[in-house]
């Protein structure tokens, strides 16, 4: 057992400990904090598994945006905690524990006794990389070989934001999502919110651009952009746009819309839905990704802000 394995076992143990904390602790706020820590450390596991693209996504979502989302809900639902007194009985608990242990054991068995020549699609993906002239295999799969999945994922994002907005009370419809934050002009938060976003935007564009050949891409870049936007909103420097704005709605549908248009164009000119002409593959993918990063940033930011709740005059 060499030192690298010991490190991996320690990492797995710490992550598991956080998982147990998240489930077992009594207070919801503490559980949320535990989950954020869990998300950040899972990103470390993904690096160790040599899946850096996923690590970037997990760092952005699990540690950053997802944690903030859960935390905001925990802070607002704090008063609701004592009213929930319907803990399940002993029978339910024991049978749930048995079911969970069985599931975990079955999965662990599956991991230990995997078939030995592992099935893999990596050589196929690498062999066809020349079709798009992008060197990052994950981007190739996301944007070309399984582009349908990515397009539908963008539609899911759109549906989620429609679902969130539809929960607005009648008198708030058309207003600004989320609470209005007051800016403290001499405050340190305002200072940070002025200093950090320019840096964040540069990093986001870098992560986006490097995604063609190295780990990175539109989603990871978009998540960073969204966090910078929400930071400025939280500091009170700007407000969320009212949901009736035309430019906002245009940005929200730009990504999936352009994707769909290109897909239909493939059906019209080429052979199949979403088939890119080989000469135009890279510019087309780049165009879709530029539209997508804007859509993703706007959607994630608005998902964090929540439903409109301030009544419109």
């Amino acid at each position: 057992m060499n030192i690298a394995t010991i490190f991996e076992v320690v990492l797995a143990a710490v992550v598991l400990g956080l998982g147990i904390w998240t489930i077992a602790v009594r207070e919801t706020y503490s559980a949320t904090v535990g989950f954020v820590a869990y998300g950040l450390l899972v990103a470390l596991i993904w690096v160790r598994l040599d899946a850096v693209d996923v690590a970037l996504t997990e760092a952005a979502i699990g540690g950053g945006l997802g944690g903030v989302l859960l935390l905001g809900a925990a802070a607002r639902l704090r008063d609701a905690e004592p009213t929930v007194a319907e803990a399940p009985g002993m029978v339910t608990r024991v049978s749930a524990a048995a079911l969970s242990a069985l599931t975990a054991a079955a999965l662990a068995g599956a991991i230990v006794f995997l078939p030995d020549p592992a099935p893999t699609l990596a050589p196929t993906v690498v062999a066809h990389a020349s079709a798009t002239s992008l060197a990052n295999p994950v981007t190739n799969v996301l944007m070309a070989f399984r582009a349908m999945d990515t397009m539908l994922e963008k539609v899911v994002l759109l549906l989620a934001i429609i679902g969130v907005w539809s929960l607005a009370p009648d008198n708030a419809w058309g207003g600004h999502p989320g609470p209005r934050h007051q800016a403290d002009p001499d405050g340190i938060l305002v200072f940070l919110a002025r200093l950090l976003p320019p840096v964040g935007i540069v990093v986001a564009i870098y992560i986006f651009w490097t995604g063609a050949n190295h780990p990175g891409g539109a989603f990871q870049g978009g998540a960073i952009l969204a966090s910078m936007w929400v930071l400025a909103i939280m500091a009170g420097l700007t407000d969320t746009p009212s949901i009736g704005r035309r430019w906002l709605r245009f940005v929200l549908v730009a990504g999936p819309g352009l994707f769909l248009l290109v897909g239909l164009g493939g059906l019209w000119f080429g052979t199949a839905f979403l088939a890119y002409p080989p000469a135009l593959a890279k510019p087309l993918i780049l165009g879709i990704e530029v539209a997508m990063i804007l859509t993703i940033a706007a959607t994630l930011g608005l998902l964090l802000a929540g439903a409109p709740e301030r009544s419109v005059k």
Partner: protein
Amino acid sequence: MSLARDIMTISAVSAGVFFFLAGTAGLLRFPDTLTRLHALTKADNLGLGLVVLGLLPQAGSLREGLKLVSIWLLVLLAGATVSQLIARTARQGETAK
């Protein structure tokens, strides 16, 4: 040359790990929020800074090195701001009691 780099890496990373140790010890032992905050910022600023300093000789190119330094600067900025905010909150909580 390579030996000198390795020595620098080992000494700087060891010093960085020491500051993480000191910070954790402070978190475990100190009695109230403000002193614990003080311990935490040691791990932030010096611990990470020394780890970054130790990894600089191992960085492949100038670009990698610049990225490492900018990460440290970002964390410094964040640490300074967040500890200010936390300290202010702790102070308000005390005066309200």
